């Protein structure tokens, strides 16, 4: 895949480049400042953009705005946003502008072999990726009227994988069950939690994440 890297830290940029190239992809351009991204994407026409969330001037969440702006120009562009700490709020804000082809991962996640390629593949196929740590923190919190308690352990697992952005196929593969079973579980989950039903795996990511955050 042809990839553009956006990160203002030289160390991170170069490291990422080596990693990406080592996993067999091509880095067509490396961008250090958010102002230069649009032009690089327009001229380079990459398959995916990998961008760090913290950038000048405030070094907090500029990356989200850059991703949103890029998607406004090219709605089909695959974007993977990397962050150094897990923040569910950033994930939901990012996915609000349409979840297909958008991903949010922790930087140390991609240190694991082939996690990056896996994520990129899922994204380019039109899926969504949300870092399991982000989802995990959301699911683990114990709340009063815990409707999650009504779910069976398998249903809870399906919920978790849905929140991570996996498609029905992805969930079936991960849990070694059939697609039909996955569908049934999902129906039960949506009914028990009172979520508006949606077959589209991208839209439901946002619904599930939002639900988990607001508990």
């Amino acid at each position, binding site marked *: 895949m042809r990839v553009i890297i956006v990160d203002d*830290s030289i*160390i*991170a940029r*170069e*490291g*990422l480049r*080596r*990693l990406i*190239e*080592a*996993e067999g992809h091509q880095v067509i351009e490396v961008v250090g400042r958010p102002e230069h991204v649009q032009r690089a994407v327009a001229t380079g026409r990459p398959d995916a953009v990998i961008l760090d969330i913290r950038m000048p001037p*405030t*070094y*907090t*969440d500029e990356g989200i705005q850059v991703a949103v702006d890029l998607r406004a120009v090219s709605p089909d562009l695959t974007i993977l946003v990397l962050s*150094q*700490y897990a*923040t*569910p*709020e950033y994930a939901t804000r990012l996915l609000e502008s349409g979840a297909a082809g958008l991903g949010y991962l922790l*930087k*140390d996640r*991609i*240190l*694991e*072999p082939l996690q990056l390629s896996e994520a990129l593949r899922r994204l380019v196929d039109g899926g969504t990726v949300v870092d399991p740590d982000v989802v995990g*923190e*959301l699911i*683990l*919190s*114990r*709340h*009063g009227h*815990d409707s999650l308690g009504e779910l069976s352990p398998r249903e809870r697992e399906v919920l978790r994988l849905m929140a991570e952005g996996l498609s029905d196929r992805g969930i079936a593969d991960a849990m070694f069950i059939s697609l039909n079973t996955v569908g049934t579980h999902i129906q039960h989950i949506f009914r028990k939690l009172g979520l508006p039903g949606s077959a589209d795996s991208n839209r439901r990511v946002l619904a599930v994440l939002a639900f988990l*955050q607001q508990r």
Partner: protein
Amino acid sequence: MIPKPICCPGERRCDDEPMPARRRSAPGAHRLVLVTVLGCGLVIFVVWLGLAYDRRPRPLLASDVAIGACFVGAGIAAWRLRPRSRIGVLMLALGIDMLLATPYGFSFRAGAPAVTVIDVLGEPLYWLQFALAGHLFLSYPTGSLRWTSPEARLVAACYALVGVTTVAGAAVRGFRGAASRPAEQLNILVMSAWIGFALMAVLLLARRFHRSPARRRRQEILPLAAAGSAVLLFVAVFVTTLAIAGGSGDHSTAVVLHTWMAWTGVIAVPVAFLLGLLRERLAFAAVGDLVRRLESVGPDAVESALAQTLDDPSLRVAFPTDEGGLVDLAGQPFEPSEDARSAHLPLGDPPHAVLIHDPALSHDLELLRAAVAAAALALDNARLYALVRAQLAEAMASRQRIARTADAERQRLERDLHDGAQQRLLGIGFMLGALRTRLQASADQEMVADLEAELRAAIGELRAFAQGIRPAVLTDQGLAPALASLTRQTGVGVDLHISTRYRLDPIVEATAYYVVREALQNVERHAHDARATVSVSHRRGRLTIEVADDGPGGATMDNGTGLRSLADRVGAVGGQVQIASPVGGGTRVVAELPCT
């Protein structure tokens, strides 16, 4: 800072004018007796003359003599009681002049030797009355006028007119005769000039009243109004004289007006002066009240008690600090305003207190000093009180500064870790990943994979360490997301209610976060199965954080719950903590932080 001087009439601002250089002392007993005797003698003499030669109705004679006597008496009293002011001398002069001029209106046998004297002197003495009266009215209450003021010029013009009239009159009468046309014309001219001067005097009196500040107006309204009326009556007298009698002045209307004018003049100065004395007496009595009142109230009340006694609502008391500034009663820094709306009076040398008051109060310097003396002990107490409070405020401010610096330091530290060490480790991780794919032997690849795992662990630890210093969520996104993350991660079930989605002062956010973190840690440690509720609300400049649980309770400041250090942290930013933890009844920690 010198005390503001007594303001003089004829000048609106007299900040730069010192007290009159010559301080007249009270006349000695001998002089007073002499003058009193002379005054009485004069009165008796005039009465005797009048009884013999005055053809006018007796009440008129009585009235004239009484008026003169009033001025003499008031003049002597003022001279004795207010030696600093020239009013006494002026009133005395006017009274004597009036008495001496009274015989001018008697009907003497023509040709008697004394008659010539009276005739010659009578005219200037007559006109001099008006000049003296004008001088008196325009310079009340100090009796002094600045050379350059319009009042002084008018008074000088009046005296000059008297002189000119005397000389010209003598000349005309001498060369052309007393009843001649030129004499009449001169008379008319002189009267017209006096009318003009009188109208100008009324204008000046009105201007003075208009310009004087509220406090002085109350005291001046009587003398100024009476003086103005007297002058207007004077104008009326001369106008009717001119219009009707063609200059002879015997018409009864003119006489009546003349009498009214004179008595109004008496009210204007002597009576007003005596009323002023009475008012001062009452004010001094109020000082006695002040002493009694101060005995029963605390140091806070010194300022309001003084303000009430001196009838100056704007009165403030301030105390000099060692650093050279001023603090008020509450220990807060005090900035004295430099404009003319307030006067400063330092008390003591070197000053232990400063009185900031309405400049008109400088009029009543004796009263001011008496009140200050009466309040001396209370002022001293108040000073100590204020200085202690100031020190306390400084200690609290210092504590706040320390807390802020520490928090800023923590932010910087977390940032440095995040941007520095963590980035580097990630960079190393990426390179290791790249290296791994280049290696052929699986044993080598495994070794690198192990290295990567160690590195991930190290990154995780570093991240947790940085979060412990100051969570990045708190710095980047604010209190609500940070608390959301915290309550998710804690091992206890938490209901979070927070409505403030906007950013607050970083030190406030950090303190609130630590309060919740500490409280939840307690719940986890001592009441593991309980549920907790965290509520944060921002209302009327205060942020309220409440953490309540339904555990076993029994938490106090000192039994290993870390609540004391929590209270210290909250106190350092000016907030308060309340803990309610009855045994068996759950625990409730409420912290309130000032937060604009």
